[in-house]
């Protein structure tokens, strides 16, 4: 097992080395290995699949440009992931601003098990809900929930205050909950 892991690391190192040498076949191979996860990540950060494609394209170009800076510390996938997130944030910095805090009416909660919701709604619908959020809420939600970042770190990265980050997250959650509940109601009606 250990030998296999060592071999995988060596192969990864060789692949990275060939990509640094601008070998197109290796670059293509690297792209094919990591693009499924990275594209899915970009879908969460974007409004629609077209935007996600743009972000993943910019992200991979940046990956190939910056590959010589990778110091083999930590996971290579994690390193690529960070670049994708930066590309997503950069993409929306040029197009939209972070929205201020908006008062949202609280709604009545519908208790339901997550698994049950997932069974009824599916991944694609949940993804669409995230995509329907405004850019500011979407990015904060992704960074907090999926990347596990703290509000202080999010605020530093996005150039907003910690309070704004907390409010954006809270609003995002409320909106998503409303969206989930509405979808559940629609699903229940169908049944």
């Amino acid at each position, binding site marked *: 097992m250990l*030998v296999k892991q060592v*071999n995988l690391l*060596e*192969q990864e190192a*060789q692949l990275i080395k*060939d990509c640094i*040498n*601008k*070998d*197109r*076949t*290796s*670059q*293509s191979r690297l*792209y094919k290995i990591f*693009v*499924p*996860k990275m*594209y*899915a990540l970009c*879908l*969460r950060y974007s409004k629609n*699949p077209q935007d*996600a*494609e743009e972000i*993943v*394209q910019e992200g*991979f*170009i940046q990956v*190939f*440009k910056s590959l010589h800076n990778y110091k083999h510390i930590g996971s290579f996938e994690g390193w690529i992931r960070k670049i994708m997130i930066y590309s997503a944030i950069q993409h929306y910095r040029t197009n939209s601003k972070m929205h201020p805090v908006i008062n949202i009416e*609280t709604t009545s*909660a*519908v*208790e339901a098990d*997550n698994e049950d*919701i*997932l069974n009824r709604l599916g*991944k694609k619908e*949940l*993804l669409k809900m*995230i995509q329907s959020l405004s850019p500011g809420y979407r990015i904060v*939600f992704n960074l*907090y*929930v*999926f990347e596990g970042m703290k509000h202080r770190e999010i605020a530093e990265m996005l150039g907003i205050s910690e309070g704004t980050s907390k409010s954006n997250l*809270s609003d995002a*959650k*409320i909106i*998503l*909950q409303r969206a*989930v509940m509405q979808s559940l109601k629609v699903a229940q009606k169908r049944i």
Partner: protein
Amino acid sequence: MDKNLQNIEDLFKNALDDNEEIPASKVWDEIDKSLDKENVISIKKKYDKLKKVSFLLLCLLICLSVYEFRTNRFTNSIKVVNKEVITKNDIFSYRKKNSINKINSKSTAKNNNQPQAVIKKTVINKEPGLNTAYSILQPKNTNPLLAAKRKSLKLHEKKQDQVDNDSETKTEKELKQLYKLHSSLPELSKSSTNTGKIRKPPKYVNSNQIKNISNQSGNNLDITKKKERKPSKLSLSVFFSPDFAFYKLKDENTDNEHENLADIEKGEDHEFSSSAGVLLNYKLNKKLSLQTGLTFSNISINVHPKTIYAQPDFSGNIKYRLNTSSGYGYVLPSFSSNPNPGDSLYTFTSEHTLRYFSLPLSLKYNIPKGRFNFSALAGISANYLMSGKIETTVESPVENEMEVIKKIQGLKKIYFSGLTGLAVDYNINKKVAVTFTPVLKFALNSINNNSPVKSYPNSFGLGVGFTFGL
């Protein structure tokens, strides 16, 4: 409410954290295009740096050559001046001494109250290149007997002069005239205490020195005519050229089932190539010259990582075949020593290197303009293969293995290429010139046969070097 919101976080995280989606194929196409653009920019930058460095080195070399030339000229002029100074000084010191001796002899004569003859004689040594002159000084008061003897001696000397006229050079005659004093022999009795001291003047070693002196003193002596050397028709050039190589490929239609022309063409990149050599130029006339010589060239091509397949070689053994634009070779790594036909192996980046020595023959049309000489050249070159090898690393489950194919199959021993280009020579002096020669070399026939593809190597070189007149 909070619990629901917390549930929302977990819901989305569990559903979408490990989600995977495949984007449209155009995404990679766009990335590919962007990377190509980046490559072009980086190659331009890379060669820009090389060009700048080459230019700086060339300037430094020119400055050093000019400095060397000027310092040599200066030291040579000092030597000539020194020689002249020595000889002049000798003459002046000799003349001074003579005048002092005259005064001394006068004073002794007065003291001794004895008439003393002033005897001056020039004796010319007949050995070639050697002229000595000396004189014996005596006071002016002479006896009639002595006067008569002087006359007879004069006549004798005149005869001597007539005899020597044919063999003497013009310079020697004029020198005699310059340094001839009263030619008369003293009657020196044995009892006489006045033995004139003979002072030998400085020796003039060769007539060229005399010429120098006489020219300096204002006499128009032209001893030897300068034999003007005819300019040599031969010159030797030494050069180094970084080459930008590119291949033209044609399908060979062999039984290679795994790779075609497009695969090979796309899967290779030319690395830095170069050539260097010695060329001999022979001037036919003012405008035309022939050039030939010996050059060595090194071509490196990078092969992208790819999968290779096992198939029978010439002797029927099953080995993994690696195809390149130059030819092909077989590898049999230790971990897979008995493959079956069709078995595959992954190779990382490979490199194949070709070395040739060439015999070029070109005709140059020269246009001299001041210190510059512009020429257009066209010719043909016979290129002999010195070595061709492929180095690759094959992927293995345990440890990747490096393989070297020492002889590329399918390469021809000789191929011919055409040459065309320009040359710019800057003459530092009559013997040395700096040369800049951009040349296009194009293959007239392919370098291989029975290979996956037929290759016609072309290259554009920027030759820099020196030309020395012989």
